[in-house]
């Protein structure tokens, strides 16, 4: 029987009824990986250990929520004794001595980590083209990008290889690829999920989250991914609710804000139509739409491109060719070792961002750029605080359009604007979800909903209501195995 395109819920029920064994499910997952190898969604596979764990589960069945479910892990989470590259040549031989808290939490819930997914180098990119291991292909087209940076995770779910994958989102890296690949992905509230064992990009923005076929599956994953972690000083010491509870409650009377400052007239009219149709659909479910003003929201991308590179330049200083990672051949002295190891190990986009970071943090420019951006960041957060006094959620398209062709976007700033609608939630630390809501030219689009801090349950509820009454999340690409 085919396991392709199945949800966690469906696979769990097949396992429980013994329609399929754990070993068969994992084995079949590796067959699918092989069939769709050309998508380049994986960097490293965990075949041997995954099959052993599956066989053990067949011998000793468990009632754990993710028991036997194969999950693809973004190659940004360190995995004990399993190579972790973060999409970079810098870490092409790095075997972590420990696992990220997210990985430990998911594996303790019974999941089977089947491998590490391809991604933009150090999560810096929106098309997966900055990966040292080659770009990932979007299952929805011939030469389309899957988005980024969690593009391998998104493509693996969209191709139906796995029911779920992990991602991380610093400026849209879960929501944007989810949108471009026609799947569901959520960036939780900053601090909800431990950052311990995530290779750091921009520490005040980075947040892990689940990617799956449905909002309900994302809720199931979130239940296991969230925990208070003493090893991460920014981990929230908050109770983790059961995110599936009340997920199908009616949403009549809910108020959703539409941002006045997002000028949708600049987008393709078909993209706008998909958005307007979703609005009408929610109205039919009893939602009331209200215009809200977030006066500084259009400064989010420039703010992000000061804050994120600044934090990146600081975080990536650890890659010095001494303790781990790439080291150049025959260094003539320590300086030469640092400079050549880094220059060989990092790709162009990573170098660009380190340089911008060094620039905005350097003496004489710190106040004009770094401090200024942090002040604007406060204004953006204040805008959200004011808006959430009037509405329960804020809705927008996730992206400006559908997936574009690989190689078609060469201007870095054009690429940065891919994250126009997603970056604000990172700056303000708010949870945001992207759900499939339509197609343009047979390519999927996503709808973004942003909630106030810690309101993920509301996001799941509103997303699930959409998915109970539409079928966009059920559409699958016509894929040829190669």
């Amino acid at each position, binding site marked *: 029987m085919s396991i392709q395109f199945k949800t966690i819920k469906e696979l769990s029920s097949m396992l429980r009824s013994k329609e399929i064994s754990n070993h068969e499910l994992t084995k079949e997952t590796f067959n699918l990986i092989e069939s769709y190898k050309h998508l380049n969604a994986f960097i490293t596979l965990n075949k041997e250990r995954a099959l052993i764990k599956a066989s053990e589960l067949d011998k000793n069945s468990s009632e754990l929520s993710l028991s036997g479910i194969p999950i693809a892990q973004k190659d940004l989470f360190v995995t004990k004794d399993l190579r972790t590259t973060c999409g970079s040549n810098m870490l092409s*031989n*790095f*075997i972590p*001595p420990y696992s990220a808290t997210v990985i430990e939490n998911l594996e303790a819930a019974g999941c089977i980590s089947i491998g590490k997914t391809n991604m933009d180098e150090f999560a810096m990119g929106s098309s997966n083209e900055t990966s040292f291991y080659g770009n990932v292909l979007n299952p929805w087209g011939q030469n389309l990008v899957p988005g980024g940076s969690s593009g391998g995770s998104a493509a693996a779910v969209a191709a139906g290889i796995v029911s779920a994958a992990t991602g991380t989102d610093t400026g849209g890296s879960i929501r944007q690829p989810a949108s471009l690949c026609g799947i569901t992905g959520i960036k939780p509230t*900053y*601090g909800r999920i431990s950052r311990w064992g995530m290779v750091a990009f921009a520490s*005040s923005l980075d947040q892990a989250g689940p990617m799956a076929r449905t909002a309900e599956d994302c809720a199931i994953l979130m239940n296991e991914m969230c925990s208070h972690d003493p090893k991460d*000083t*920014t981990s*929230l010491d908050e109770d983790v609710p059961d995110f599936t509870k009340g997920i199908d409650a009616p949403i009549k009377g809910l108020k959703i804000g539409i941002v006045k400052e997002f000028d949708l007239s600049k987008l393709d009219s078909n993209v706008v139509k998909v958005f307007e149709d979703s609005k009408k659909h929610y109205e039919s479910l009893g939602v009331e739409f209200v215009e809200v003003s977030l006066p500084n929201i259009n*400064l989010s991308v*420039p*703010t992000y*491109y*000061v804050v994120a590179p600044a934090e990146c*330049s600081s975080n990536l*200083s650890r890659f*010095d060719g*001494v*303790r*781990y*990672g*790439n*080291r150049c051949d025959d*260094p003539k*002295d*320590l300086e*030469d*070792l*640092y*400079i*050549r190891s*880094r*220059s060989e190990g*990092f790709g162009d986009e990573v*170098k*660009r961002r*380190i*340089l*911008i970071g*060094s*620039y*905005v943090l*350097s003496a004489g420019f710190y106040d004009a*750029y770094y401090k*200024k*951006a*942090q*002040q*604007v*960041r*406060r*204004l953006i957060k204040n805008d959200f605080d004011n808006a959430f006094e009037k509405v329960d959620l804020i809705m927008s398209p996730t992206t400006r359009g559908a997936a574009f062709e690989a190689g078609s976007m060469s201007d*870095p*700033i054009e690429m*940065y604007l891919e994250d126009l609608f997603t970056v604000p939630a990172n*700056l*303000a*630390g*708010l949870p945001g979800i992207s759900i499939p809501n339509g197609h343009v030219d047979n390519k999927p689009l996503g709808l973004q909903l942003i909630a106030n801090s810690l309101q993920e349950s509301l996001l799941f509820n509103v997303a699930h209501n959409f998915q109970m009454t539409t079928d966009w999340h059920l559409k699958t690409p016509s894929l040829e195995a190669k």
Partner: protein
Amino acid sequence: MDKETVTTISNLSRLAFDKENEEKITKDLENIIKFVDQLDSVDTSNIEPLTSPLEKTAKTRADEVTSKNRKEKFLKNAPNANEDYFLVPRVVE
């Protein structure tokens, strides 16, 4: 953004570029800095910078040994090490 500035920040970043790349990177950086210069248009006087969405003091934990010494495992990832130390080119003559 001129070549001198790019040389300074490349040096601060411990990165080196060949001539051809240097020109491209100078141009890219110039465009990016121009793009973020939009922030100048906002009045931010008396606005407290927001460094993190969590405006709480970072929590600390007790300084207790939580796992046994895994020196060998950590040294294994080093490009060059002996039994006890990471090895680098001689620093002091």
